């Protein structure tokens, strides 16, 4: 029996589109130039010199004409982004987010696919639940969704989930995200079992004996606020431990949401030994620090916590050097009343899908810390880590495209959010760079209101 397609759901129908004179940037395809791009039947059909491609008469648009969007040589056409780490909260926590709202937020942020975490209620740890979620995603998701079921049943760290059956039902890999696999022995069994069933094991790294009682990074700010601290060694010691286990078992592991310099070092050391590890980093860890927690704004509370500026710089360096393979948002929606409580009582997490690109463009690309091509590469690299084709602007490929206006300035959240929740750590910040149009798996998933004006 062959496994089903791991990504499911997405927009319909296949797009018929002519993008005229857009600046195409796809570092993977080696393109950085102005082009006309034709999307026919949801696939990239033609790339021509600016002004070269003509409107075709046989479109399927309402008028029988394909839509034409004029980029004026200014709008950028990027491969759409891939987010390997989101919380869609379904089943059980639909008051925070659901498959429709979460993927709508993804599309608005320029993402053509996301991978959902299993810390739902009930936990995604069985084939029947995976089947029903995939059915729901096929109906409701605005962009394709992949699922990572739990490594251990109920995320309790005591018994493996039925990984082989879950893989047959389309599991992309496995994770206990939200919690670590605390027992080294349990994780080792999962690593061994990977030889049977395949699938990346994605790890949320945290030693609860070190992090217990903590609500923010341990350091000067936690000392001043009297809030229990989470030391960064709570993450980095587990990264080092699990990298060694993966090396010993020759298993494939992915480290989720790295937050500190010591973890970057541990991943670099593992990679230098040839161990099969990869890592992701979140926009908030690249842009914010413990200083942003001083106001005890609960939107700044997430796991792992915002750390020091030295950690932030090390993460950027890790991303640049490729020690960290990709960007992931860890989009973690929570309802307003859940976050409108004192800091120590608030749940961990920030939304991030709608701001990821704009925040990183504003915070890293505009000041010249990294270049746009690298950002695009790292925001699309998550796909390959999960053995999926990376979004690419090449002839014959399905259209996974993000059309962005790098000059557009907006205030995060000023017109509300596509997500059901508003707990975004970048809310209220002025960002530059806006996604105008997202195509996912060949169809239009998001169209910004500003597009009509820009295209006119």
């Amino acid at each position: 029996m062959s496994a089903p397609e791991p990504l499911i759901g997405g927009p319909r129908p296949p797009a018929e589109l002519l993008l005229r004179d857009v600046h195409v940037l796809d570092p993977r395809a080696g393109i950085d130039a102005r082009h006309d791009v034709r999307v026919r039947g949801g696939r990239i059909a033609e790339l021509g010199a600016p002004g070269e491609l003509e409107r075709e008469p046989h479109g399927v648009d309402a008028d029988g004409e394909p839509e034409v969007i004029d980029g004026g040589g200014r709008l950028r056409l990027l491969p759409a982004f891939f987010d390997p780490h989101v919380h869609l909260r379904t089943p059980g926590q639909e008051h925070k987010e659901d498959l429709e709202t979460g993927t709508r937020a993804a599309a608005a942020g320029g993402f053509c696919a996301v991978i959902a975490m299993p810390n739902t209620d009930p936990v995604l740890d069985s084939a029947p639940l995976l089947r029903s979620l995939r059915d729901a995603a096929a109906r409701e998701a605005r962009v394709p969704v992949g699922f990572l079921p739990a490594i251990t049943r109920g995320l309790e760290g005591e018994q493996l989930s039925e990984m082989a059956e879950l893989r047959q039902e389309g599991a992309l890999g496995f994770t206990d995200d939200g919690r670590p696999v605390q027992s080294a022995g349990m994780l080792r069994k999962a690593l061994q079992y990977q030889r049977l069933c395949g699938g990346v094991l994605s790890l949320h790294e945290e030693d609860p004996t070190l992090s217990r009682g903590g609500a923010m990074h341990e350091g000067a700010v936690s000392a001043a606020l009297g809030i229990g601290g989470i030391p960064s060694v709570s993450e980095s010691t587990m990264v080092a431990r699990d990298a060694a286990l993966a090396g010993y078992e020759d298993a494939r592991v992915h480290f989720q949401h790295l937050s500190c310099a010591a973890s970057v070092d541990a991943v670099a050391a593992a990679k230098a030994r040839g161990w099969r590890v990869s890592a992701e980093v979140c926009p908030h860890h690249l842009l914010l620090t413990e200083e942003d927690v001083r106001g005890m704004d609960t939107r700044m509370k997430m796991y792992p916590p915002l750390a020091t500026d030295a950690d932030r710089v090390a993460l950027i360096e890790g991303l640049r050097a490729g020690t960290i393979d990709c960007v992931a948002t860890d989009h973690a929606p929570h309802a307003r009343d859940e976050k409108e409580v004192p800091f120590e009582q608030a749940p961990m997490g920030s939304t991030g899908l709608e701001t990821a690109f704009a925040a990183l463009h504003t915070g890293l690309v505009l000041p010249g810390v990294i270049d746009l091509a690298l950002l695009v590469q790292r925001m699309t690299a998550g796909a390959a880590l999960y053995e999926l084709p990376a979004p690419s602007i090449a002839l014959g490929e399905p259209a996974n495209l993000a059309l962005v206006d790098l000059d557009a300035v907006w205030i995060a959240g000023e017109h509300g959010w596509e997500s059901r929740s508003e707990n975004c750590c970048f809310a209220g910040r002025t960002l530059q760079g806006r996604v105008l149009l997202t195509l996912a798996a060949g169809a239009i998933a998001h169209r910004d209101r500003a597009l009509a004006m820009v295209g006119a």
Partner: protein
Amino acid sequence: MNHLISIEDLDRADIERIVSQAERFAEVSDREIKKVPALRGRMVLNLFYEASTRTRSSFELAAKRLSADVVNFAASGSSVEKGESLKDTVLTLSAHKPDAIVLRTPWAGASELVSRWCSAAIVNAGDGKHEHPTQALLDVYTLRRRLGGIDGASIWIIGDVAHSRVARSNVLAFQRMGAKVTVAGPPTLIPRGIEQLGCDVRYTLDELDTADVVYALRMQRERMSETWVPSLREYASWYQINGRRLTPRQVLMHPGPVNRGVELSGEVVDSPQAVITAQVEAGVVVRMAVLYELLAGRDARPAAIPPAGEPAAQPVAGGRAA
């Protein structure tokens, strides 16, 4: 001043103004009639999410001596136990239009949050392990009375600094007033990064004789179960302030309640160096000064319900018969 949330928000002039006002109120306390009409018709709501006798009763006495009406709202036995959120509780109680809410919670930042949710003046009476600003003010008051001033004084704060809101507020307040602060205690109970508040850190009491003021913190017995220190016995042998460690020229302080035989030996509690009961006395007059500052001081807010015959500061929805 609109609220008293944190010592961090105060400068030296603010602290001196409140302490001087407290000194004026102290004269009232020595009279036969201890009441002044300064806050007549004003309502002070004590909202306590943690057990407290001395802080709550001290605020209650302070409000009553200023002729304010006092309502005590303890979180146990109330809607809070039925799962009502802090915000909903505050919004509900705000319907009674308190002029000030004195708030104690186990959560850092709660007072700041509450100050955004209602129009009353908020007095932080302890927010988790963050701050306890009125304790710091009464400690400054006590020391000023005892020493004349604390500019240049060396003050050691000893014990469980990690879990102490008193320590954090006092480090800030003593430094604002020109003192040099050292925190000392077992390394497990000194939070990493505390030195960035500007204080020195010591893990032994070897240099305690350099201190002018010895401020011992309460050692919570429940910390033992979490193995912050190996035993109370070992804690006492290394950090207890006793007759051997305390010199006659030093002043001894403690926020109470004292664990005799743990952080303090019985002999020093009863010694002339100890100003522990003076701190309790100071609690009432300093809290009077704080309530006065917020509700009747120069930049105080107008009454939630204006006195008869005076126009309301802001129109009130629904109107109200004066």
